[in-house]
């Protein structure tokens, strides 16, 4: 159980970090692949409006999913911690080492 929770925590952190970076730095993709700099959306060149939209609604959407997923993960973690036996005196002593 705890190994699964640990792996899940690391995975969630890496995945959301990468997605957030992509949302905030999507302009780099248009520099890396100049062929994407074609066409318009709502009258704007795509390389202008897409980074603005991703930097606003994209980030907000990722944050929403991140909040729901991470809060659910916290519940699982809390459930695991609550299932542990209460802290013994020896445990408390070892914290003070």
């Amino acid at each position: 159980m705890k190994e699964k929770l640990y792996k899940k925590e690391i995975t969630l952190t890496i995945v959301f970090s990468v997605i957030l970076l992509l949302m905030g730095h999507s302009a780099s993709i248009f520099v890396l692949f100049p062929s994407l700099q074609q066409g318009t959306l709502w009258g704007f060149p795509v390389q202008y409006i897409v980074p603005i939209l991703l930097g606003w609604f994209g980030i907000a959407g990722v944050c929403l999913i991140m909040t729901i997923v991470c809060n659910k993960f916290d519940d699982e973690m809390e459930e695991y911690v609550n299932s542990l036996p209460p802290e013994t005196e020896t445990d408390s002593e070892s914290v003070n080492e």
Partner: protein
Amino acid sequence: MPAEYALSNVWVGLSVVAVLFVIFYYVGYVSSRKTTSDEDFYAAGFSIGPVTNGLGMAATWASLATFLGVIALILKLQVPFVYLWIQWAISIPLLTLLYGTSLRRMKAFTPATFIKQRYGKPATIVIVCWMILIMVMYALGQMIGLGRAFELLFGVPYNTAIVVAGLATVGFITVGGMYGASYNAAFQMVVMTVAMIVPMGAIMKAMGSSGWWFPPLAYGDMVPEMVKAIPTFFDMKYDFRWYFALIPAFTLGPVALPHLAMKVFTSSSVKSARWAVVWFALFLGLLFSGTYVVGFTGNFFTATTGRIIEKADQTILILNVFYNPTLVAAFVMGGAVAAGLSTIGGNLMAIAGLVGSDLLGIIAPDMDSSKKMKWGYAALAMGGLLAILMAFKPPKFLVTSILWAFGLLATTATPAILLGVWWKEANKLALIISSLFCGFLYILISPHVIPSVVIGKGLVAALGMSGGMVTIPLSFAMFIILSIAFNRMAMFKSFAPTLVDKKVIDRIHGWGTDYEESRYNGVTVPVIISIVCLGIFFWGLVPWT
């Protein structure tokens, strides 16, 4: 023909700002009655709800520059500066994900509270000093901007403006503590957003745009005329490395900003902190998109009317004076003032936390809560007065662009926090050495100290992008490699993380009493990270064109 900002009736401007200050003082006064302990003073009693906190986070992040400096730089650099600005919206979400909720779980007042528990006193002093330096640079920049805004608004001399505006500002921030800073920041964000966006609708309508009903995203019909007037406006202009260099300097720097982290810590719970981030992203996106449309419209204005905006940082004000009634123009100025005040509030609270709680906690660890709170008030007022005094004749090295200081923070503090939270092997001595060495190296290779010893040139060097691409990955790599080495050398045994230090890590990740030595304790991944960092370091050394 040059266009200038001048209110036709100064009393209208004075009235708008006076009304705003009355509200700020009222909020500060009400908040002061709720402040009875150091938890109340530094963290608003860990009680701020998600919507208020989201607004407060956005207001604290969006400084006076959002109204003045950014628009000037969009006018100068055009679209690349918009890209630079967009990525700032991920700072607080990343901060919250990577360490904010963990530190909220331990009820930290500032990131340095964690540094003290994790690395001990000497390392804390190093990190706190870097953070205070950057917060003073930040607050000083806002204070100077505020003085200039008052000078512009009321036509009073700069020195008088700085005394009046400075004292009035420091007064309500000191009275309110973190409760006041949080509630005032939420209100200031509403004022800023309305002042930025609503008047732009009228301006766009006057310019003939059919998108006046939603200025942030509906100005597409102005694009053809803009491209005709300025064909290069939408060009991305720079190579991939320029865009990549935004990550180390401008994404990783703000992640460690104490005044942003402190907003996360004020949340009523870990879950509430995450919800606050959702609101933050929505509110900040709206305000930032307003900034982009002002930058676009400023360029459009100069290109299509033939008028020149000589003082580019006054673009939003000039547009409003030109197209809107005096009362609206004065309200926009009030919005700019609110933007400056919310950031100064955050900066001064961070200085108070770093001095009154973290440094004092080292000198007098047994001080009781009420005394700590009193010292917090004193540190807050002293920090504010110091910023006012320095703003009269600011030391040149401190008025370097705050954007440059983000690179310094990413070099000195970000590795300490991120590796401290996620890696048990992070070593105290390795932190001190890498933070000091790379921090001073960053200062040395900037164009602001010895212009002949510099990495990069022009704007990338001045903003710290090229310097940061060298020192930030070097700092991470040095910290990791030295930690692995020192932890295995008997002579450095006293600097190795103890079991207590390691238990802090498991606990702040939510494991409670369940401790596992192997958790957050690998070597392979940190070594891979340090190799990648060294690759970026060498890439940063390649001459910048």
